[in-house]
Each structure stands twice: as structure tokens, then as C-alpha cells.
């Protein structure tokens, strides 16, 4: 671990694969910028790879004041051991106060390995980060300007705020889609700090024999409108209603975990704690009771319409428009209404 260092920077691990920075760390840059401004320190991106200098410039556009650039042929593919070794070295050299990672498969593989090497704290899968004050009531000790690491726990039934006041850096992984993507500003320039990298083949414990990347069938995060169906839709055939309404609204079809488990739709469409977190302009929840795990993935939607025949369904606590009724009647009404609007506009 490193000592508490209130002048330390705020860092984001700029995870890249095949020369492209992942969305989640980019999203994280907006929050890191905000935290750094509150703490009046610099925000830096940490970029590892081979021949990735161009990305360093781009990270400046996304709000980084500095980019620590570690390039080496053996860093071309991510793996925990070699990446952890480099980042451990950087943390001890520059003593940042906060280090953030996207909660991507690689981020969740890497961050705990680093935390273990440094013997520092790490909070997984945060959905929010804030700066705040912690007081230990028994002793009256007060710690100011700590990183509040906020995350759902126990299957989403509670929200825990975690802190680390003595064994720094303060580290967290942050869930995909919970922070808004910053708007790139081509005029912003980051100071690029090139780091010397010493690695040998023995630092690579893993050999990647083959790799296959699958494009997701639907991009829920980019959709302005999402029409999501739950178990209440009843069958795969009836899920056609969801597809039709989504089509009429120019949106994407989503689903609860229950609907996915029942085979109504592919897992790529799953919204919620174990699926995608979304924040569309409009979210239409059809036949969804509103389990807390689902709410965690869609409560940031600007407008929510809920259709359910159970007036006690928890989803109604969240809805801006509550329609208590049979989805098999209400959804066709909405489709009819939208089609007529379109026809009127055309005339």
C-alpha cells in the first residue's frame, strides 16, 4: 500500500484492446474529471499496450490532464500478470490517491490482482462515486475528502457506501453504462508521460491461443427508447408484441432476467444488475414486476411507462405513467396510436 497522499492524482485505467479504448473507462473519465476537480488535483489516464500513442492523444480529448503511456511489444494483449506488474510500479512511483477501472471482464480480472500486490482496498462494481467525509463515532476521528465507493450488494437489496481511509490508493471498478460518456473535445491536450517498460517473456504467465469477439446483437446503451418485456409477457410468441412496439417507437427490445431465462429472447437484451445498465429517454416496462435487480439497471431512465395487470407491482413505484391493465390490450393500443400519428404526419 501507499501512504495517504492528498495531493495524489485521480487515475483511470484506459483499458484498450486491438487499439480501441473500451467504452466503460471512457465513461469513467467524466466521473474521474469531476472527482479530480472537487479534490483540486489532476486527472490522468493510464494506457498500456503496443503502439498505442494515438490513443493517448484521444484520451486527452476525453478530459485527461495527463496520460501515463507504457508501451512494449509484450503488452500487446492484455493479461493480468504483466499489466498488474506495470501498474503496481506506476502506483508506487506516482502515488495517486484514486485508481479507477471499468468493471469489464478485463477490469475485474486485473484490479483485484493489483489490489493484492499493493495490499490496498478495492471495491467492485460501483454504480456511483462521490467525495465525502467519514467519521468514526467511537473515536471521533474524522477523514475528509474520501472516495465514497457506492455499490449495490446482496443481490441489489441494499446500497453500500465503502471507504478506505488508510491503505491507499483508493481503488474501485465501475459498472458499464452507469456514467455518461463525456463529449470529446478535440482542442483539449493531455501531457503524455512516456514510461520505460521492462518486461521479459517470463512475465507472461498466460498464452492466448485464440480469440473470438462477438458483436452484441443489440446496442441497448445507444437506444433512446427501450421496450422491455418480463415474465408476464407469457411466451416467446407473445414477445412479438415487444418487438412490434419497439419497432414503432424506433427503439430496441429489452428484457428482464426472468424473460431471458424463460427463453423469450436472447441474453444480449437483458437489462438489470447482471445485464446492461441503461438510461434511455423512454423505458416501457411491459409485464415486468420490477425486481430490485431489474430496477438497478433502468431506474436512470428519463421517462418510464409501466404496464402490468398487478396494481401492487413494484415497478409502478418507479413509473411516470402507470397503466394497470392487460398488456395484450394496452400494447396494441399504443401501437395503433403511434401508427395513426405517423400516418397523420405523412398526410
Amino acid at each position, binding site marked *: 500500500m501507499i501512504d495517504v497522499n492528498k495531493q495524489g492524482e485521480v487515475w483511470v485505467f484506459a483499458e484498450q484492446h486491438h487499439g480501441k479504448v473500451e467504452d466503460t473507462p471512457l465513461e469513467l473519465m467524466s466521473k474521474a474529471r469531476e472527482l479530480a476537480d472537487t479534490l483540486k488535483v489532476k486527472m490522468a489516464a493510464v494506457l498500456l499496450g503496443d503502439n498505442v500513442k494515438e490513443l493517448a492523444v484521444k484520451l486527452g480529448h476525453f478530459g485527461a490532464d495527463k496520460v501515463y503511456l507504457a508501451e512494449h511489444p509484450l503488452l500487446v494483449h492484455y493479461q*493480468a500478470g504483466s499489466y*498488474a506488474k506495470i501498474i503496481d510500479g506506476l502506483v508506487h512511483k506516482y502515488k495517486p490517491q484514486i485508481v479507477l477501472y471499468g468493471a469489464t*471482464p478485463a477490469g*475485474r*480480472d486485473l484490479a*483485484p*490482482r493489483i*489490489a*493484492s500486490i499493493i*495490499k490496498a*482496498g478495492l*471495491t*467492485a462494481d460501483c454504480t456511483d462515486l462521490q467525495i*465525502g467525509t*467519514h467519521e468514526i463515532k467511537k473515536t471521533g476521528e474524522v477523514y475528509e475528502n474520501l472516495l465514497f465507493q457506492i455499490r*449495490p*450488494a*446482496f*443481490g*441489489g*437489496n*441494499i*446500497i*453500500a*457506501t*465503502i*471507504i*478506505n481511509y488508510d*491503505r491507499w490508493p483508493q481503488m474501485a471498478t465501475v459498472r458499464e453504462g452507469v456514467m455518461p460518456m463525456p463529449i470529446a473535445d478535440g482542442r483539449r491536450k493531455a501531457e503524455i508521460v512516456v514510461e520505460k517498460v521492462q518486461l521479459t517473456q517470463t512475465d507472461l*504467465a*498466460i*498464452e492466448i*491461443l*485464440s*480469440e*473470438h469477439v*462477438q*458483436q*452484441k446483437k443489440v446496442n441497448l446503451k445507444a437506444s433512446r427508447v427501450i421496450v422491455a418485456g418480463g415474465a408476464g409477457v407469457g411466451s416467446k410468441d407473445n414477445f412479438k408484441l415487444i418487438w412490434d412496439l419497439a419497432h414503432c*417507437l424506433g427503439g430496441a427490445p429489452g428484457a428482464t432476467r426472468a424473460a431471458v431465462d424463460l427463453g423469450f429472447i436472447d441474453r444480449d437484451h437483458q437489462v438489470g444488475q447482471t445485464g446492461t445498465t441503461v438510461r434511455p*429517454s*423512454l423505458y416501457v416496462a411491459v409485464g415486468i414486476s420490477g425486481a430490485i435487480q431489474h*430496477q*438497478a439497471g433502468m431506474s436512470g431512465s428519463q*421517462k418510464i411507462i409501466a404496464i402490468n395487470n398487478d396494481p401492487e407491482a413494484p415497478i*409502478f*413505484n*418507479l*413509473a*411516470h*405513467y*402507470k*397503466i394497470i*391493465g*392487460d398488456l395484450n390490450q394496452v400494447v396494441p*393500443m*399504443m401501437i*395503433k*396510436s*403511434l401508427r395513426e400519428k405517423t400516418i397523420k404526419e405523412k398526410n
Partner: protein
Amino acid sequence: MVYHCVVLVKQVPDTKRITGQAMNEDGTVNRAALPAIFNPEDLNALEMALQIKDKFGGSVTIMTMGLPVAADVLRQGLFRGADRAILITDRRCAASDTLATSYILSCGVKKLNPDIVLCGRQAIDGDTAQVGPQCAEKLGVPQITYVEQLLKLNSKIIVVKRNLGNGWQEVKAKLPVLLTVIDSANEPRVACAKRLMKCKAAAGTSEIEQQIRAADPTASDEQVKAAAKAKCAQLKQKDLLIEQWDLDMLNADLQWCGRDGSPTKVHRIQSVVLTAKESKSVEPTQSAVDAMIHELIIDHTLG
């Protein structure tokens, strides 16, 4: 070539049935107040280890850290085919975060010197997925996370398929190695009736002491200890004793255990209550639905 596997498992509260009453005032969880289950992905890890034993020979040791009652998941492991069960239990383990937990578990694993360590990817109470990689680091072995399939195993190397959600990788590593296994890896076997009959009496020292105390509340501590020692000796003879280790037996450095060994602390716990700021009821009629759609177009939510 046979392989010695250690499977790290966790007894977890069934998070689908959690209520606010199950929380202590300091924000930690009162595990005793919750129905406890075998963490689901740890069953997938156990299944993978058992398949390795079935195919190549060797042994499967199942290990957990927890309260004495966690012996229950170890028994379930024995029913399914584990050869040896070890419970790490010690008051000084309380309030361990993932870093302290992985330190304690790694001290346990080091005593066994296995070829392969397996864990579930994550536990359903915390969903952190941190203990696996942290254990691997403390053991000084490579970690392979998100393992879905074992493709090849020979005296020196292992090849597995990782499922990363948006694609997969085939990776190779030298043994020893630590794997974290995901739920799509396999269908965990159910308890074998024969083994269930054989192992249902398996128990750990603390459990036996508790049973003796419950049967005779007037017994002195010495009497309980003596009776427990005799019972443990009997169980051991029948190969039914769940070994119980404390931090002294692990030679663990106490500064890395429990609350002192945990850099992360809880600042606050809140129950989740989400509500909309403004809410309207819409009748399930065509005219009411038309009016709603019209409103959404006017306020630019649509179009």
C-alpha cells in the same frame, strides 16, 4: 499423472430472500439470520474439479472460511464426491474484506500445495469476483478467470476456454494455476445417495462441541472438550472428520486478517427504495393511451 485440486467455496446468504432485518447496525450482515446456501458458481468449480479427478485421478479438497455452521457446505461437497474437507474458522477472521479473506485462504491453500485451485467466479452475496484473483496473486500463480471449459490438461500445462460475455478466448498456462469458473461451465452433479449415507455424519470440532452443549447444558467446558475430543477421534477413524483450522494453525500474520487486515470499511448502508418524482395513472383505454403518446411527443420524449 494425477492432479490434486483444491476448491474454495463459500456459504452465502440466499440473496433472493434478504430483508433489512438481516443487517447489523454497523452495516455488516447478520449471516446467522439468513437462509444459507452453497454459493452457486462454487458448485460449478467443484464439478470441474470432480471431473478432473474422474478423468485423470488425484484428489479434490474442498475448503471454506466461515462460521462453524459453514461446515454444512463442506458436507454437501463430500456428498458430491470431495475427498477431504477443511473449515477455516476463527473469531479473528470476522469482518474480513476480500483482501483479508484471500490472504487467509491462501495461507490454507499453501499447506496443501495443489496443482489446480478452483473457485466460482463470484459469490452471490457480494458479487465482487475479487477473492479468486487475489488468492492467485498471494499464491504466486497465474489466474484464469471466467473459465467455461477445460480443453487440455497434461503434466505441465492446462488449456481452457474463457467466456468473456462478448466473446471467448482459449488460453494456456503452466501448472500450478488458479481458475475461476462460471455457471455455464457445467451442470453440477447432485449428491450421490451412497456418499450421502456415508458422509452425513461428517462434522467439524466446533459443531460437535455445540451438539454436546445442546444435549447437556450443564456440562463444564472441560467435559465438553473431552467429549468432543473422543467423538472427533471416532469420526476421524471413519474418515468423517471435517478438519478445522484456525489462524494459528495457518501461521497467519494477524495484521492481514479480519478487520485489521481489511482496507475497505463500510461507511453507510441504505435500503433500496426507488420512486418516480411525478407519476400519472393512465386508464387502459385507447383514448387515454392516445393522450399519453401525445404528451410524450409534445415534451420531445418521442420524435
